[in-house]
């Protein structure tokens, strides 16, 4: 069936900010869909509040709305754009939920918009637990058995029918309190009883426990002629009980017989038909009892997902792109397989390699949260690795995680770990369990021992055991098998006896051991191992990801490395530039950098260069095989990158765009003779090295907060005395604000030093004068080495001291004086010139009492580049890439700073609801996972929109609780007065209320939590509070109010923790009470400015 002709305009809903569980995989799917639809001549209307996405680039859609994804806003957009259809299946759960809501409000009917892909009924049937269960029963599929009980008798009856072990879930409690797994009858009695009492309606769900079963996912596609294909099967390394986003997963399934796999495949096809997903992709999860093969359905996502992004990257089959084409009427056989060109998309990819995905966690940022994994997702990113064996892919993945592992290496000595700890770490799923499996095997645990403790399939454990055995072989390889003389003749290696045979070394490489890992095992350095193996002819070979296991010719150069006999790279004679990506997402380094990498690729393609992308993050647009001319799906380590460089010999390598990951490689790459383009490595070092930077700013006569570094407590105190409290302290080896603290006195300084000493390996502690109450300013600029152009000057809303990544900011600045802005400009030009910046430059300033201080200079892409680019309508990263290959700003037509008629606000999005017990206060350590953008004609509107988009919709009426520290008391009066005048009821603690009353603000008084009063918590629980403003001071103030802030997060009540945030909020509320929210596409904004 060819393309439908009745659909001319389609609305696509994006997934909004990056949060845990919904990351840049939806930028990838949305971008693919936009491209696929535009290719077909269909007009695309896009809504997404996340400016850091490629999909919100103005070229990708006909009308792009960077607006909050809410039903109200969507209705406005639909009314304005009048699309023919809505494609709800590409924007994650957010997109799907919002689509459902507007359908339920009748908006789609009112404007005659058809839901394509999956319609309302199908989505309901898949998403509603009861409907889904009924549907599965109707087609004869098995689900975990379950029953509801309202009292103990019913509970016992249910248990008799289901059988132990069971999971007991009380209904209507907060965060699953009172539930648990019962293995014995005693436990059941206890847990069921507590559960019934905890449930507000005395109801518990008793469910057959399938914890420990094997977990699988199938990615299914269907077209409107009912042709169905399975794109990929995925097996979870971690058994059921851990969110699949937090599991190590492997593609294809490894331990299913064909009979088992086909049963699952048949079930998946039956499910997509029964649920009625007409066209497009779905993800279906199954569990399999390893003892008897019983298979149950867990759930279905009637949309593209994180797993479908992974499946697309794992197979080369672009699920989202095909889903978009199917939605407009094509059938699978009418769509070509891009990779083979000659065969159709109606087939099931055959893989001839093993793919391993490993989640990346950030528990170090949330020390109060335990690194225990369960059914709610906690990881913030992931890496994918491809190898010819599971062993190779696993080790490549572990080094690609960039958490300091060189593979399945030893961070601890297994001999020093007690059996007790090993058993605990194996039994209780956690972020480092994979390493404990290794320790256990090293200690002599059998495969079965490990299986009993973990329920991980013995096949995986045996593969880990093979790695352990090979490692032992390397460590103890006898001297007799050495080609000792051969090594002895090489002058740099003369005295060392390696004891490594060529065969063993080759095998180690085939098992995925990195050079560094081998070097550590035989007490050598990485480069020596690299040279040694290269001399022995052990070179990486590159193979293609081609969807067909080499059955057909493949045209798309999508490569992975392995150690085999044949290399398939096709090296062109073109001028080429290699772009190093950012690796797995993490807090502080996410989609913004992927955005920049993609833009570099687009820009250089425009200039006729061949572009080569290297990255290991399967969620991203950069790892789409058609973003760059060539894609190498590889870990971003020195070794892996050099292996590609040895083959490709690029004319230039870009390290500026992928965040800290490639930047960390810059020095070594440079030393290895790699042509790094853009700002020189020397300049990067001058900006990053503290001493050199201090000299630089002194030379340029630019102010910097007083600072020093200390290795001892006395030294630190001396420095503190010299520069005066408060001070900002951090260990020197950390990045992204890790462990950074603001310290007000000698006592807390002592504590910090003691803590840092434990982890810092004798590294010095860096101390800066903390500019209390200063305004922080971010600048993104471009330079061609001669001329510098400022892209954007952004004023932070929260004061200096809150990590710039967590702070909201406004662009252009709204309170800075012209003089201050001029000074900022002047400093930017000076620094850019001195560092001979070629490309992007980001500078952070602090402004206090009209004095401008420079805090740091980053001669690279920053987190704010996409935000500024969207606000300006100027693609900064693209221009920067062109400057890096020698183009000039003048030549490109960018010489003047752009003036804007609209105001843009960036707000950060924080993951606190995922980490129970973690305080939500902002500080120098970055904690946000994503960002949103609000655009409007005034600051108030832009800020208000940004708050809605960030999920903190500000109330326009109701009750506000205010409790602030003494320093803020003067400023808060003004805020409270305004709220009061707008009709809000004010509630405050005694101290604050006294100030209010004396200013004629009627205030209700509640007791302090710290003094045992829980009234305020009750108000939150009952949903009677609409806004909280709480700026605590000192340790005690912070801990006293922590229960309140946590409760507010759990109940979704906006909680503002800075006085500046409160002022901005009031401004927003005030504006919105006066005017209606209107929507405008960025294409319109660009045209107007």
């Amino acid at each position, binding site marked *: 069936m060819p393309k439908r002709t009745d659909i001319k305009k389609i609305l696509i809903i994006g997934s909004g900010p990056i949060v845990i569980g919904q990351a840049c995989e939806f930028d990838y799917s949305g971008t693919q869909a936009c491209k696929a639809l535009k290719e077909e001549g269909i007009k695309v209307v896009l809504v997404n509040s996340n400016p850091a996405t490629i999909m919100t680039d103005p070229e990708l859609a006909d009308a792009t709305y960077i607006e909050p994804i809410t039903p109200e806003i969507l209705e406005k957009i639909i009314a304005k754009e009048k699309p023919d259809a809505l494609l709800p299946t590409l924007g994650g759960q957010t997109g799907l939920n919002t689509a459902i809501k507007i359908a339920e409000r009748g908006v789609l009917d009112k404007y005659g918009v058809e839901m394509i892909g999956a319609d309302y009924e199908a989505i309901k049937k898949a998403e509603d637990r009861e409907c889904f269960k009924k549907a599965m029963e109707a087609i004869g599929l098995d689900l975990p058995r379950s029953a509801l009980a309202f009292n103990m008798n019913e509970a016992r009856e249910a248990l008799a029918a289901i059988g132990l072990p069971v999971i007991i879930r009380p209904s209507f409690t907060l965060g699953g309190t009172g539930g648990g797994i019962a293995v014995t009858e005693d436990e059941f009695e206890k847990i069921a009883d507590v559960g019934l009492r905890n449930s507000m309606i005395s109801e518990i769900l008793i469910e057959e426990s399938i914890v420990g079963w094997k977990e699988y996912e199938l990615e299914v596609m269907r077209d409107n002629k009912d042709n169905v294909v399975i794109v990929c099967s995925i097996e979870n390394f971690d058994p059921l009980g851990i969110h699949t986003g937090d599991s190590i997963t492997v593609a294809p399934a490894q331990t299913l017989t064909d009979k088992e796999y086909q049963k699952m495949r048949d079930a998946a096809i039956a499910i997509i038909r029964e649920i009625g997903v007409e066209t497009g992709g779905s993800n279906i999860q199954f569990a399999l009892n390893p003892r008897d093969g019983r298979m149950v359905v867990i759930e279905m996502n009637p949309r593209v997902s994180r797993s479908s992004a992974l499946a697309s990257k794992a197979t080369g089959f672009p699920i989202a792109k095909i889903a978009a084409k199917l939605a407009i009427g094509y059938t699978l056989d009418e769509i070509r397989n891009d990779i083979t060109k000659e065969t159709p998309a109606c087939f099931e990819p*055959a893989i001839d390699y093993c793919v391993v995905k490993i989640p990346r966690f950030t528990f170090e940022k949330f020390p109060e949260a335990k690194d225990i994994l369960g059914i709610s997702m906690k990881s913030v990113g992931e890496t994918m690795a491809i190898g010819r064996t599971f062993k190779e892919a696993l080790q490549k993945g572990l080094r690609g995680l960039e958490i300091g592992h060189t593979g399945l290496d030893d961070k601890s000595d297994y001999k020093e770990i007690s059996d007790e700890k090993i058993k605990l770490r194996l039994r209780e799923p956690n972020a480092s369990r994979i390493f404990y499996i290794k320790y256990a095997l090293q200690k002599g645990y059998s*495969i079965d021992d490990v299986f009993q403790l973990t329920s991980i399939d013995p096949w995986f454990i045996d593969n880990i055991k093979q790695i352990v055995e090979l490692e032992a072989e390397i460590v103890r390889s006898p001297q007799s098998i050495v080609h000792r003389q051969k090594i002895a003749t090489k002058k740099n290696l003369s005295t060392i006896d390696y004891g490594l045979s060529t065969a063993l070394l080759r095998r180690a490489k085939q098992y995925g051991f990195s050079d560094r890992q081998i070097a550590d095992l035989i007490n050598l350095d990485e480069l020596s191992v690299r040279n040694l193996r290269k001399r022995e002819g052990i070179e990486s070979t590159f193979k293609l990801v081609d969807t067909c296991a080499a059955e057909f010719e493949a045209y798309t150069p999508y490569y992975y490395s392995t150690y085999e006999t044949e290399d398939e790279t096709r090296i062109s004679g073109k001028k080429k530039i290699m772009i190093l990506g950012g690796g797995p997402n993490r807090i502080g380094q996410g989609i913004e950098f992927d955005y920049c990498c993609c833009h570099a690729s687009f820009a250089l393609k425009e200039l006729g260069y061949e572009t080569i992308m290297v990255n290991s993050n399967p969620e991203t647009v950069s790892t789409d095989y058609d973003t760059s001319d060539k894609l190498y799906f590889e870990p971003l380590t020195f070794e892996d990158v050099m292996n590609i460089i040895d083959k490709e010999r690029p004319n230039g390598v870009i390290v500026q765009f992928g965040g800290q990951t490639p930047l960390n490689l810059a020095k070594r790459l440079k030393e290895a003779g790699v042509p790094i383009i853009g700002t020189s490595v020397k300049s990067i070092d001058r900006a990053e090295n503290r001493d050199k930077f201090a000299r630089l700013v002194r030379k340029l006569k630019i102010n910097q907060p007083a600072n020093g570094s200390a290795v001892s407590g006395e030294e630190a105190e001396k420095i503190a005395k010299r520069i005066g409290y408060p001070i900002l302290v951090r260990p020197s080896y950390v990045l992204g604000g890790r462990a950074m603290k603001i310290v007000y006195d000698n006592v807390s300084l002592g504590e910090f030093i003691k803590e840092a000493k434990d982890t810092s390996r004798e590294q010095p502690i860096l101390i800066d004068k903390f500019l209390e109450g200063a305004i922080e300013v971010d600048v993104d600029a471009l330079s061609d080495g001669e001329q510098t152009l400022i892209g954007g000057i952004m004023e932070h809303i929260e004061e200096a001291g809150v990590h710039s990544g967590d702070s909201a900011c406004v662009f252009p600045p709204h309170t800075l004086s012209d003089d201050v802005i001029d000074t900022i400009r002047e400093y930017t030009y000076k620094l850019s010139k001195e560092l001979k910046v070629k490309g992007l430059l980001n500078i952070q300033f602090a402004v206090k009492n009209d004095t401008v201080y420079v805090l740091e200079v980053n001669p690279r892409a920053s987190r704010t580049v996409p935000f500024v680019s969207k606000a300006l309508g100027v693609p900064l990263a693209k221009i920067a890439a062109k400057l890096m290959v020698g183009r000039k700003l003048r030549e490109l037509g960018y010489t003047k700073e752009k003036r804007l008629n609209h105001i843009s606000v960036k707000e950060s999005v924080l993951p606190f609801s995922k980490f129970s017990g973690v305080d939500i206060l902002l500080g120098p350590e970055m904690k946000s996972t994503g960002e949103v953008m609000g655009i409007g004609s005034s600051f108030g509107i832009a800020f208000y929109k940004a708050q809605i988009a960030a999920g903190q919709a500000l109330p326009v009426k109701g009750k506000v609780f205010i409790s602030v520290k003494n320093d803020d008391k003067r400023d808060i009066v003004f805020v409270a007065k305004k709220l009061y005048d707008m009709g809000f009821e004010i509630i405050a603690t005694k101290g604050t209320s006294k100030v209010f009353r004396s200013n004629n603000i009627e205030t209700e008084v509640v007791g302090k939590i710290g003094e045992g009063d829980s009234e305020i918590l009750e108000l939150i629980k009952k949903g009677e509070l609409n806004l909280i403003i709480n700026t605590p001071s000192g340790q005690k103030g912070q801990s006293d109010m922590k229960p309140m802030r946590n409760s507010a997060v759990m109940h979704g009540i906006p909680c503002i923790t800075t006085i500046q945030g409160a002022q901005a909020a009031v401004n927003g509320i005030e504006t919105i009470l006066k005017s209606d929210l209107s929507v405008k596409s960025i294409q319109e904004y660009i045209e107007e400015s």
Partner: protein
Amino acid sequence: MSLNKKMNAVIALEDGTVFKGKSFGAAGERCAEIVFNTSMTGYQEILTDPSYKGQFVLMTYPLIGNYGINPEDVESREPFVEGFIVKECSRIASNWRSQETLREYLKKNKILGIEGIDTRALTRHIRLKGAMKAVISTVDTNEKNLVERVKASPGLIGRDLVKKVTCGQTYTWPQPPEKQFKVVVLDCGVKFNILRELAEHSCEITVVPATTKSDEILKLKPDGVLLSNGPGDPEGVSYVVETVKELIGKVPIFGICLGHQMLGLALGGRTYKLKFGHHGANHPAKNLKTGRIAITVQNHGFCVDINSLSKKDVEVTHINLNDNTCEGLKHKSLPVFSVQFHPEASAGPNDAKYLFHEFMKTMRKHSAKKNRH
């Protein structure tokens, strides 16, 4: 056991290409045609598929043997593959039904196994140069000698391999509880799953050797005859083609794979050898009547020439979407049809199982007609 302690093994191709690996099966030396299979699961079914007689199978999926070997998932009385080529054979078997490892199984059944091969490179070589003769040896590693011996070995064209796999004498398959049709299966190397499927469709099944004459078959008064799959070149089994010719028009016929090719020849068509054949579980076959596509299991090196049938009373019912080759045919007036792919699946998707239902429908219609006369 680590790799380096294993016996060396070599594959040499007739064009002189040599790959070295380690043995993981029986010791010895054997010549056969080398083909690659792209299925990611189902090695046990593949090993026991009689159609692989005379062939070495290279699995493109690199990790094989993971779930071991169980007694149920066999497709015939014994494995017929001449040699098995993989990247890495699992040293343990992990599945609740598994009773032995793949290594043990190959050794026990005296099948050569070679691992540690760059199977992708070898697959690409076959794709570019075509399926060819090869030798696997664990006893002689002299490359020159091996290449000479391969060159001297017989190829598949015109050879009768059916006689090596067909049953020695007529037998009946376990009877289904409800019997609707009597089906004779002409065993050219039938996969058990064809028989299981027929039984599932309430057929009483008699399996007869490939040499059985048409009158003997008709004497059994079948409601239908199934021409089974089997190894090698259909032109090598002209005696079966003759039998098929005599059966056409007298009884409903359903041909699968080799059975399809033999039917094609019997109807006056031609067959030819494909460059490297279709061996896998992901081939899209389009039903030209309904437009529906089934993901099919395929295993054939020869193919019915789609053009050779254009003037006959035959219509092409299915085509392969990858290369537009003939995947199914049907007589325009007689109850005779066949498919090139494997509707019985095993190993692979069950999408094409509807064809057994079609066979039942054909038999039902035919017997109703017969009864009216």
